[in-house]
């Protein structure tokens, strides 16, 4: 007979309530791990989606995410001719607020040339950008339906396609538009400003400027060698995709990661204390029973098993509920809660360890109970 299970069955209501309370705490901790992972995943979402091997940006910068970068539009053709480069595409990036049917919508606008690197890797619904101007492919996070009209920089864009999971490092949905539209949006002066520039003799200025050129390499090309060639001979900065990923996670979202990481650690610490206290209370509630067990000759392993099994059952049931709660509610979070099998398993291990260590104090207390305590009134 299993004493731990029998005791749980006997106090099932209380156990379930304790379990539920604990599961909510674990759910918060698990959600924090998911949000932490989500920040990293979102930071890398754009660069992964573009499937670029190289990022060519303005010399002396680590753009276009960590720093501002501006390079002439014809750099794309120059990069495309570098040995080892299979194809290249120019892109612009700009955070913008658009007027959408549901109100002001903050988004990261990516300008690219359809048919060249720089566009979304997959379209969830609708189609990619066609030949017409003022079309937009936007991520589902923007909650815009196909055919919706969005006003951006005084122009009206029509949503022709939807992507999924493509957001900027800040969590804003990505909106893909034609490079030319994006360049106008970003670099074209307003008529009064253009007039002032002309009057000052500076001209209205060219808008053929891009923020970066993304390049895909031939399978046998060495990204580091091609990057070095571009740096040395073209007077541009070139980052491999690995370097760009490093910048995104170590620089762009570093503070957010550390903040979330610290908060997660604090939550886990609080969880550990609460779990330990619950297990201790559950054990002390059975003081007389444990004393009786000892008096009738139960070996220590029976007492240890009783406490430890209940701790692990409590932790396991609580964690299963927590996982279900987080998965059921993660769509409600404004930012991604990225939980995969690795994170779930890792947290299960952490919770298991917490239960294990949390029960040590209780086991020690249980073993210290004197059998005499069963005697007398």
């Amino acid at each position, binding site marked *: *007979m299993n004493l731990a299970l029998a005791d749980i069955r006997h106090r099932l209501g209380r156990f379930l309530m304790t379990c539920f309370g604990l599961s909510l705490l674990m759910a918060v901790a698990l959600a924090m791990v998911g949000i932490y992972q989500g920040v990293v995943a979102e930071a890398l979402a754009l660069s992964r989606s573009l499937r670029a091997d190289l990022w060519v940006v303005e010399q002396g910068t680590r753009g276009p995410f960590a720093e501002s970068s501006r390079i002439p539009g014809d750099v794309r053709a120059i990069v495309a001719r570098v040995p080892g480069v299979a194809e290249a595409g120019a892109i612009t990036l700009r955070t913008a607020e658009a007027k959408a049917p549901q109100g002001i919508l903050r988004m990261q606008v990516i300008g690219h040339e359809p048919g060249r690197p720089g566009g979304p890797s997959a379209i969830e619904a609708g189609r990619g950008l066609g030949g017409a101007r003022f079309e937009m492919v936007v991520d589902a996070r923007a909650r815009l339906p196909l055919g919706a009209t969005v006003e951006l920089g005084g122009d009206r864009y029509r949503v022709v396609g939807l992507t999924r999971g493509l957001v900027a490092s800040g969590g804003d949905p990505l909106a893909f538009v034609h490079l030319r539209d994006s360049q106008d949006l970003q670099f074209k002066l307003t008529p009064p400003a253009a007039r002032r520039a002309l009057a000052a003799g500076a001209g209205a200025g060219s808008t053929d400027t891009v923020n970066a050129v993304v390049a895909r390499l031939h399978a046998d090309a060495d990204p580091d060698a091609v990057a070095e060639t571009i740096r040395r001979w073209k007077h541009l900065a070139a980052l491999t995709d690995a370097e760009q990923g490093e910048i995104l996670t170590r620089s762009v979202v570093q503070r957010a990661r550390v903040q979330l990481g610290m908060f997660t650690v604090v939550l886990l610490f609080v969880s550990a204390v609460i779990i330990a206290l619950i297990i201790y209370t559950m054990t002390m509630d059975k003081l007389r*029973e444990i004393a009786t067990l000892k*008096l009738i*000759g139960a070996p220590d392993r029976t007492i240890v098993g009783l406490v430890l099994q209940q701790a692990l059952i409590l932790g396991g049931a609580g964690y299963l509920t927590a996982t279900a709660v987080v998965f059921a509610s993660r769509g409600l979070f404004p930012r991604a809660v990225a939980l995969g099998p690795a994170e779930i398993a890792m947290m299960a291990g952490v919770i298991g360890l917490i239960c294990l260590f949390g029960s040590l104090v209780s086991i020690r207390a249980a073993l210290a109970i004197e059998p005499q305590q*069963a005697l*007398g009134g």
Partner: protein
Amino acid sequence: MTARITLEGIGKTFGAGETALRALDGVDLAVQPGEVVGIKGPSGSGKSTLLNIVACILEPTDGRLLIDGQTVWDGRYRVADLRRLRRERIGFIFQFHNLLPFLDATDNVALAMTLAGVDAAEARARARGLLDYLQIGRRAAAMPARLSGGEAQRVAIARALANRPSIILADEPTAALDSERARVVMDLLRQVAQDRQTAILVVTHDEKIFDRFDRMVALRDGRIEQDRRRAA
């Protein structure tokens, strides 16, 4: 015949120096198989200390304790050995029955057997047999909270008998029962003692059951003041 319990010059002192308290002083007592012995005395007379020493949970300061002729506390016994001794040789009955509230009557009895290594199915079968023997078989599936005081105490007696102990130690087993149920419980204990040649030592204040003992030992200030056998 070897006495089930033998106490030779047992003494127990708590603390040391000026605060030392002599709880037992030179107690000699032998309880034979099948004998039901009552221990009475005022508070502080040493009854509980005596019971704890015989239960092998308190080491005497002086003297020698023998159970079934074997010396306990001779330096060879470790905690695990004492627990095994309690598991296999001693049955306990408490004032408030101390049944585990999360096990039904059968499992409460069977638990004592499984702790001694009996297979769970066999333990349950034997537990039902014991409950029948104590005329409580119809309540075998009841949880302790559903049992009356007398029923719970019968289950506790069944648990005490689970491993066929040579000794049963009872601490105020009738204190929570009315006169009639108290007498029934004592009669059951007498029957067990006779049927199984078990020595039964009962600490009690309950005057209504004094006539149910073969011997009544009165303690005062840690010494045996009176050791009187019931007239045949």
